[in-house]
């Protein structure tokens, strides 16, 4: 944030902090509610006093979660699928984004817009023909099938978002590298990517969480427990008109932790990488 006179600066600071606090409360209350529910006994969950702090906190929901469902298997599957989806999306996205951002060629606008048009037909309609294809390719009940399906969703937005960020990398730096004898791809790897680390992080996190939290395809394309993801496992706690809130919220809470932890850890690296890049550039 730019430096200003200390009076204005202090004012902005305090407004900023205040708004941040409000936003944090608004964002986290539902999450806290989820966690609190997972620690309550069934009767307290249904009591008409929505208690903020569980009266008799209990781990029964978690016990039930781990004993009655193969939760760790779900976690393993979700991890494999999410990590693979992210890795492949990043690579495809970077390559495509660089082409769209820096190169000129016929069909550039068409391809760029075409990538976005793929979102017009939502998964809630696409899933049937997609399943028919997966079925014919014997990709049902496999990790690969689900990863491929997710790529159809993550690659366009990775490409577009990265295109936006690549364009904001100053041309001069790339130019300098090229004049020094670098190839275009080398310029991409050595100049553009390091400058776009925050963007890569964002795009990676979003791809990861999309794949981690997706429900429709995971439900339709997978039958066996061996490949089932957390999200599908979660909905098994809804039996017709009865919701087993305790274990469901417990599983949801646990499921939200990996993305958050990964985000927290990578944040540091991203910032470090960025400051290094700035010094070099």
């Amino acid at each position, binding site marked *: 944030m*730019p*430096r200003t006179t200390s009076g*204005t600066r202090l004012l902005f600071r305090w407004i900023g902090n205040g*708004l*941040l606090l409000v*936003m*944090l409360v*608004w964002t986290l209350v539902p*999450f806290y*509610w*989820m966690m609190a529910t997972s620690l309550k006994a069934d009767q307290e969950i249904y009591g*008409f*006093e*929505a208690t903020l702090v569980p009266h008799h906190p209990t781990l029964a929901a978690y016990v039930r979660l781990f004993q009655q469902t193969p939760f760790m298997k779900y976690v393993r599957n979700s991890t494999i699928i999410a990590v693979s989806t992210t890795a492949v999306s990043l690579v*495809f996205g970077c*390559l495509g984004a660089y*082409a769209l951002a820096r*190169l*000129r060629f016929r069909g550039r606008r068409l391809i760029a817009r075409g990538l*976005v*048009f*793929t*979102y*017009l037909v*939502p998964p*809630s*309609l*696409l899933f049937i*023909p997609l399943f028919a294809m997966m079925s014919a390719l014997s990709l049902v009940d496999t990790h690969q099938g689900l990863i*491929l399906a997710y*790529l*159809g969703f993550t690659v*366009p*937005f990775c490409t*577009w*978002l990265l*295109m*936006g*960020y690549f*364009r*904001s990398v100053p041309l*001069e730096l790339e*130019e300098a590298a090229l004049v020094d*004898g670098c*190839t275009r791809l080398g310029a991409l790897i050595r100049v553009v990517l390091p*400058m*776009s680390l*925050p*963007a890569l992080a964002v795009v990676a996190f979003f791809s990861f969480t999309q794949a981690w*939290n997706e429900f429709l395809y995971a439900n339709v394309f997978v039958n066996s427990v061996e490949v089932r993801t*957390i*999200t599908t496992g979660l909905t098994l706690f809804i039996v017709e008109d009865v919701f087993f809130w305790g274990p469901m*919220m417990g599983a*949801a809470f646990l499921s*939200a932790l990996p993305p*958050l932890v990964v985000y*927290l850890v990578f944040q*540091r690296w991203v*910032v470090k990488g960025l400051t290094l890049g*700035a010094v070099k550039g």
Partner: protein
Amino acid sequence: MTSGLDPAVLYPDERAVPTPVLRARRRLSLTRRHEARLAYALLLPALLVILGLVAYPFVSAVYLSLQNKPVGAPGRFVGLANYAELFRDEVFFQTVRNTIVYTAVGVSLKFVLGLTMALILDQERRFNNVFRMLLFVPWAVPVVIAALNWRWIFDDLSGFLNNFLITVGLTRDIISWLADPRLAMGCVIAVVVWQGTPFYTMTFLAGLQAIPRELYEAAEIDGASVVRQFVHITVPRLRTIFLTTVMLSTIWTATNLQFVLILTRGGPANRTEIFPHLAYVTALGARRLGMGAAVSLAFFPLLVILIILLTRRMLSQTDD
């Protein structure tokens, strides 16, 4: 060595052009074609994925909308009959209105909140990275769970919100958040905003972080106020990111049925009925896939126009 950068842009002043660049310029006409081939090569993986996985279902969805096709039975071509039936239904027009309002308000709120939060998080502060992680929470939770959770918070009898308000004394009666025709849409939008703001916050923040501090410092020295700095430094640099985020988010918001499906199912009395939900009820509830596809596609023209408008500036090569 290939160089596809346009020296005319980099060096508008003819006199300052260095020799290596002059040499590069001479090869300009040849390098254009190489540039195109490189571009296609780089885009190939993405295109293969899209064409292979999305194009076929996409086209089949369009063809589906022209058929009378129940689930599990063969389809019968009926031309535009589905669309005709749709336009005759009075619920259709209410659905159009609802979808536009829902999308416009949702996206606007997300934009404002996201930008505000990004600016705030860009300030120096202890534990900033923890705050960033915490604001990311809504995206870390599956949409189904977030929606169920909020539905419960809004519950009239045993919901957290009512209980809180009554305990604190702000109201004496139960408020039927999701059942009151005046409040239902607002509540749905609130949940959409809660869930979608992190996308804006994080993408804007990444953009902000890439702006070198020196630019602001230089402007500071020149005597520019904070607002002027924001308008003349921050906004131009973020413009592409603004447009991209808004474009993607608009499409996603307009085609997302999860929130309406879990919170209100289009009620009360069609107040929150939006296209994707109507398509879902038609395709899977009534099991009329052809009609469901038609409902989904009926909203396309608006979205396509929006995409073309938003991407026009973004895709023009001559500005930066």
